[in-house]
């Protein structure tokens, strides 16, 4: 569904990604795994068109996203939950969800759905996003992306720094999205989460894909994944 082919990208003249290729399938979770600074966030930004590609391309169901202006990428159905949440802090919860809904303006039900998945957001509906707790902010970041009714969901360390109950809420929502047939690309560092969620794992090291594992391979060679995470 979402395919990266030989993607090279970086910041200014500093190249970070070297010929990254992988494909995320509908209804599956692809975990992008790698040490700090491996280039996971850079990969996700490259998909969103927020970085110019030096080589390669990104396609979604055959459409070449990487040749489009960045604001067309979400219009093709890519929902983005960035690392560190990056909410519109001065806007209310309701307004953040409205921004998420921009590309599918007629669909009002989706806000109700998000609020039923994250009831905490309903209680804080008219509150400014930067007054929410960390966990609530992460729910809002996730809800904002869900408002797009995405075909592909990019989650960049969505449980970083959260307490267990919040992690569960985010994880349940992720599974729910997968079950709806969405292709999920999940950047994740925690071994237990990867083992629980991943259908495929792509190992990123120094901006290069060092290998991929399927679910059964993960079970057969658990040490391969563990050594890659450095645990």
């Amino acid at each position, binding site marked *: 569904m979402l395919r990266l082919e030989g993607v090279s990208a970086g910041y200014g003249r500093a190249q970070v990604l070297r010929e990254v290729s992988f494909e995320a399938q509908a209804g599956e979770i692809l975990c992008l795994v790698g040490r700090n600074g491996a280039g996971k966030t850079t990969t996700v930004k490259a998909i*969103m*068109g*927020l970085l110019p590609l030096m080589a390669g391309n990104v396609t979604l169901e055959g459409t070449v996203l990487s040749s489009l*202006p*960045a*604001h*067309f*990428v*979400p*219009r093709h159905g890519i929902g*983005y939950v*960035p690392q560190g949440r*990056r*909410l*519109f*802090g*001065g*806007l209310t919860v309701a*307004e953040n969800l*409205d*921004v*998420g809904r*921009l*590309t599918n303006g007629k669909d009002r039900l989706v806000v109700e759905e998000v609020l039923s998945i994250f009831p905490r957001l309903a209680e804080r509906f008219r509150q400014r996003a*930067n007054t929410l707790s960390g966990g609530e902010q992460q729910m809002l970041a996730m809800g*904002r992306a869900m408002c*797009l009714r995405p075909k592909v969901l990019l989650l960049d360390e969505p449980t970083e720094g959260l307490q267990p109950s919040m992690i569960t809420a985010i994880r349940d929502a992720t599974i729910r999205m997968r079950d709806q047939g969405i292709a999920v690309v999940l950047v994740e560092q925690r071994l237990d989460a990867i083992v629980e969620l991943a259908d495929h794992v792509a190992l990123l090291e120094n901006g290069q894909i060092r290998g991929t594992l399927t679910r059964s391979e993960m079970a057969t060679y658990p040490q391969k994944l563990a050594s890659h995470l450095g645990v």
Partner: protein
Amino acid sequence: MDFGPYLMLATLEGAVTAAVLALTASGLALVFGVMRVVNVAHGEFFMLGAVLAWWVTNMLGGSAAFGFAVALIVVPVLVGFLAVVTDMTVLKRINYDPERTIVATIGILYIFQQVTLMTYGPDARPVVPPFNTRLALPWIEFVDGEISLYWPWGLSITSYKLAVIGAAALVLVGLWVLMTRSKLGLLMRATEQDRDMALAFGIPVERVYALVFGLGAAMAALAAVLIVPIQQAHYLMGHDPLLLSFIVVIIGGLGSFPGTILAALLIGLSDGVISVFFSPTLAKILATLLVALVLVFRPQGLFGARDT
């Protein structure tokens, strides 16, 4: 005249200054808030508004009211359009880089000013106000313990000046509704908060920028059309509104809309009062001093919050 009526007169004059200043400064604040562009050419959009208002009313002839009504609508649109073109041909090309846009807008300032000098000339030219009835105003006095009204000689304002205050208030309320209640306002505020995330949710950021730059310039032009029947159009008239707008935006707190309005009232009213009782130069000196104090002791502005 006694002190009381004299103060009221000065306050009313100040209110006209404040109204026009609030419009001009809101345009500057909008552009800075959303685009992070310090638009040094903002005063020239004001000047172009006044000069074009003279040109439109002169071309049309006919009754003063008709010409002025046309100018009120056409001139802000023309100036806004010119600003959109400026944005797309200059600011977009330098990628809205904060430092380079300052240098670029200084260049734009001189281009607009000199082209106006070459075409319109160095003269100050008046625009006839659409209506200009002098309204005498009452003052209260105590006679034998009873309150009574009287009409002091010289305490009056023209109906046009009252209309300027009303029109400015109306436009500012409109801008506030646009920013807080409309979808367009949501796009602008989201872009203001985080440009990359706005892109990542499908907002055409470059189009929003062009629109904001046009809207900001149109606000300055509208302010100028309103004031030109009182002040006359001149190719150098952009300097004062630019300086005062910067003062207002800094005092009000960058990017704070209510702060900008409050600061415009403060500066405009004190400018009126100090100019009448002492001198216009003293008013400018005090305003500049206030900016220096604000920058040292409260850099987020008198009315701005420290967060975001």
